[in-house]
C-alpha cells in the first residue's frame, strides 16, 4: 500500500499538524481533531489563486521599475533613482559587489519568481511531462528566495530614517515605486504559498 499518495488511499493529511484523517464522504469542510485546522486534500483552487496573484504581480512589476523608488537630496542637489538607476549609481561609485547583490535581489529574483511560478502553473494545468524532481527543485527555490527581495525595501527604510539631516543638508524620500515593488514581493510570496506542490506529483502519477 506504500508508494502511493495518501489521497489515493482515501486519506487527508492535515497541513498544519500532519495528522492523517479519512477523506470526508460528504463535501462539508471538516476541522482537524488534533489542531483545529481546516482539512482539505489539496489546497482549494490552488492554480486559480496562484494565477490571479501572478497576474497582479506582473502588472505591478511595471510601475515598480518605471517610477522612482527614492529621491536623494544633498546640499540642494536632488537625484531621483529608479530601481535600475540605483544599481547603476552603485556601479559608478565602484561598489560593484553591492550592485550585483541589489541586482540579484531586486531584479533577478522577482523576475525569475514570476516566470518560474508561471511555468509551474502551466506545467500542472497543461499536464506537461518531464522530470518531476526538477520541477520540485524550481518550486523549492522560489519558496526559498522569495523573502530576499525585501532587501531594497528594508534598505530604503533605513536610509529614510537615518539620512534626515537638519537644515536641508541631506534627506531621502521614498518614491511610489517602493509601494509597487513591496506589493510584488508580498503577492509573489503568497502566490508561492498558494501553489500546492502535490499537484506536480498528482499530475505525474495520474498518467
Amino acid at each position, binding site marked *: 500500500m506504500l508508494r502511493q499518495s*495518501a489521497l489515493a488511499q482515501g*486519506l487527508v*493529511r492535515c497541513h498544519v499538524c500532519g495528522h492523517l484523517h479519512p477523506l470526508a464522504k460528504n463535501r462539508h469542510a471538516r476541522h482537524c481533531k488534533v489542531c483545529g485546522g481546516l482539512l482539505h486534500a489539496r489546497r482549494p483552487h490552488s492554480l486559480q489563486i496562484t494565477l490571479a496573484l501572478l497576474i497582479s504581480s506582473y502588472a505591478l512589476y511595471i510601475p515598480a521599475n518605471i517610477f522612482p523608488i527614492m529621491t536623494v537630496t544633498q546640499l540642494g542637489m536632488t537625484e531621483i533613482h529608479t530601481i535600475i538607476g540605483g544599481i547603476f549609481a552603485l556601479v559608478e561609485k565602484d561598489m560593484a559587489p553591492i550592485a550585483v547583490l541589489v541586482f540579484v535581489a531586486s531584479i533577478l529574483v522577482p523576475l525569475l519568481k514570476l516566470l518560474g511560478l508561471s511555468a509551474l502553473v502551466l506545467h500542472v494545468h497543461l499536464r506537461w511531462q518531464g522530470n518531476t524532481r526538477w520541477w*520540485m527543485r524550481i518550486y523549492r527555490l522560489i519558496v526559498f528566495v522569495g523573502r530576499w527581495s525585501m532587501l531594497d525595501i528594508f534598505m530604503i527604510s533605513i536610509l529614510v*530614517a*537615518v*539620512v534626515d539631516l537638519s537644515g536641508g543638508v541631506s534627506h531621502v524620500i521614498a518614491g511610489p515605486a517602493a509601494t509597487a515593488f513591496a506589493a510584488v514581493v508580498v503577492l509573489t510570496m503568497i502566490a508561492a504559498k498558494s501553489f500546492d506542490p*502535490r499537484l506536480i506529483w498528482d499530475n505525474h502519477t495520474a498518467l
Partner: protein
Amino acid sequence: MPPLTACPECDLLLKPADLITGEKAVCPRCGYLLHRAREQSIERVLALSIAGLILAIPANFLPLIGIRFMGNSNESTLWAGAVSLFGQGLWLVAVLVFLASIFIPLLNTLLAFLISVHLHFNRPHPHLAHWLRWLQHLEEWAMLEVYLLGIIVACVKLSDTADVHLGFGLYAFVAMLLVNAMLTTSLDEVLFWQRIAELDRKKHA
C-alpha cells in the same frame, strides 16, 4: 491500521520513522525533510525564547546606525525605519516593514515562549494548538536576516559620503537574529504536536 503519515510536499503515504536524537527522516520520493529529531527541543526553545524577548528591547529602541555629515549627525532605530516611511505617506510599505522586522519576529518569539513553557511544565491550555498553528504560518514572514543585509547595503552606500558608525542596537539586533534562527532550528514540530495531543488526551481522560 498502523499509524501512517504523508509527505506534505508530494503526499506519499509513509510509515513514520522512529527517530533517535540527531537522526533525520527524508521523503524517499521528493526528498522533503520530514522530521529531524532534536535534543531537548522544548527546553531549548524555552530558553531561547526568553533570551529573544529580552534582546528585543535594546534591538528595537537603541540606535542601529548613525551618520555624521558636514557637522550634522543623526541616528536611527529599528522603530524609526517604519515610522519615517509612515510619515512620508507610504503607509503600505511602512506597515510591511513594521510587520516583517518588528511585530512578527516578536510575536513568533512570544508564541514559542508560551507553547514551550506550557509543554515544559505539562500544563494543558485550550489555545496551545492555535498558538503552534499561528507560529507555523507566520514563520516565513519574519525577515530579520534580510533586514540585516539591508543595513549592510545601506551602510556601504552611506560610507561613500558620510561618516557611518554602528550603534549598540545593532549588536542587540544581530544577537536577536541569531537567537531567533537557533530557536527555529531547535523547534521539533513533530515532537511539539505529539506533546500537545498527549496533554489534550490527559485533560479529557
